[in-house]
């Protein structure tokens, strides 16, 4: 198809504009992922291993929030950051920071809910032993995260996928402003609305290639570490 050839051309010539957009996409999504992971992984783990009334309900809400429409997240963050909003004084609207916030909000429930499930499975195995050794609280959370690290990479990659593919939220809070907040997905949406389907598709292909590379990197590191450890 034309789009593939065009994508190939885009990748090998990689002009400054495309590079700028690509790099912003990566930066925004990775930072959002990092922020989200720091919150969501301990949260998901803690919910898996701590008993308190309302725990089931929290997990339910996390699961439901996986279905939070990006546009809604975008609007909420927009209202928060808009000049008349509570955080308006920070002047973050229509900056990459705003996009990072929106993406982090969007993927936190996803990573939390998925990691909750992973840790719950491991918890069935470790619970008695940890109880017996008096391992609770923070130590337990860290131990679970460490011991489930391989399975958790899939949760993290799911979060990354959602972040990098996301358009509805970032376009609202970022504004898709050229040379400022334009990322791959908003560029694709723009080309689509211009009717440049081939260009849109080839940008999509470039993004997928990028996604593939990052996934390959992460999975590669995981496999390498797993192999080294159990050699």
């Amino acid at each position, binding site marked *: 198809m034309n789009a593939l050839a065009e994508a190939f051309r885009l990748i090998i010539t990689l002009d400054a504009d495309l590079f700028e957009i690509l790099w912003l996409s990566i930066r925004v999504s990775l930072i959002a992922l990092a922020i989200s992971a720091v919150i969501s992984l301990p949260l998901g783990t803690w919910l898996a291993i701590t008993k308190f009334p309302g725990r089931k309900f929290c997990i339910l809400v996390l699961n439901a929030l996986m279905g939070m429409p990006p546009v809604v997240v975008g609007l909420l963050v927009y209202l928060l950051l808009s000049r008349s909003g509570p955080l308006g004084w920070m002047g973050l609207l229509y900056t990459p920071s705003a996009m990072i916030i929106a993406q982090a909000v969007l993927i936190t429930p996803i990573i939390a809910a998925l990691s909750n499930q992973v840790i719950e499975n491991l918890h069935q*195995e*470790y619970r*008695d*032993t940890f*109880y*017996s*050794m*008096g*391992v609770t609280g923070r*130590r337990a959370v860290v*131990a679970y995260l460490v*011991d489930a690290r391989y399975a958790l990479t899939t949760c993290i990659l799911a979060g990354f996928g959602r972040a990098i593919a996301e358009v509805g939220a970032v376009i609202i809070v970022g504004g898709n402003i050229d040379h400022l907040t334009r990322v791959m997905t908003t560029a694709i949406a723009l080309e689509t609305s211009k009717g440049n389907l081939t260009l849109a598709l080839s940008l999509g292909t470039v993004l997928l290639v990028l996604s593939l590379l990052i996934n390959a990197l992460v999975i590669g590191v995981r496999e390498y570490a797993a192999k080294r*450890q*159990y050699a």
Partner: protein
Amino acid sequence: MPSPLLPIRISDLRLVKGDRAVLAGINLTIGEPGITVIMGPNGAGKTLLLRCLHGLIKPDQGQITLGQLSVTDSRDQQAMVFQHPVLLRRTALQNLAFAVPEIARSEPQRLLRALESVHLADRADQPARMMSGGEQQRLALARALLSKPALLLLDEATASLDPASVLLIESLVKTQSAQGTKVILVSHDQGQARRLADDVVFISGGQVAEQSPANQFFTAPETPVAKAYLAGEILL
């Protein structure tokens, strides 16, 4: 110094699963230090009783006190080795370090000595889950002993050990007991029970059938059910 968790008093302990009373009113007082061996047929409720003592299961009914303490309050002073020990996805040494982080920080050599004591010194860096069945069981024992518990619960802790390892573990347990740790040990191995037991509790069908000093139990069991068990005749 006798264990501060003595006497252990269990009164009218009941646990129902489905429509079966798997613990059907256990009344038991363990007052003496030393080693108490719990025997009884498969499914008698030995593991469940140990789990209740350790606080892993809340019984449906009944009371347990250890010395002046409740189960929860005594948890820090207990250690347990499970019938199928669960080791973390780490090396042997890291498994020990994780169990006793303060010791790992202040006296790391003690971890190595613990490995030596169960003859696993050369396996320090092997992933624990890749060890043979007997090696894992020995590692779990070393882990439990490291915390110097006041009460040590062992659930068939030597079931898949070779004869020499069995004797090794038995001597470790005896040493620990001599240092004041109260040991409660579940075993189907009569030889082991004879070698270790100060007294024997015989459980059957979720109830205590007999509690006697060891020599009396093995020479002249009071109850027909214990007699039949020792002869290998009980079938549920």
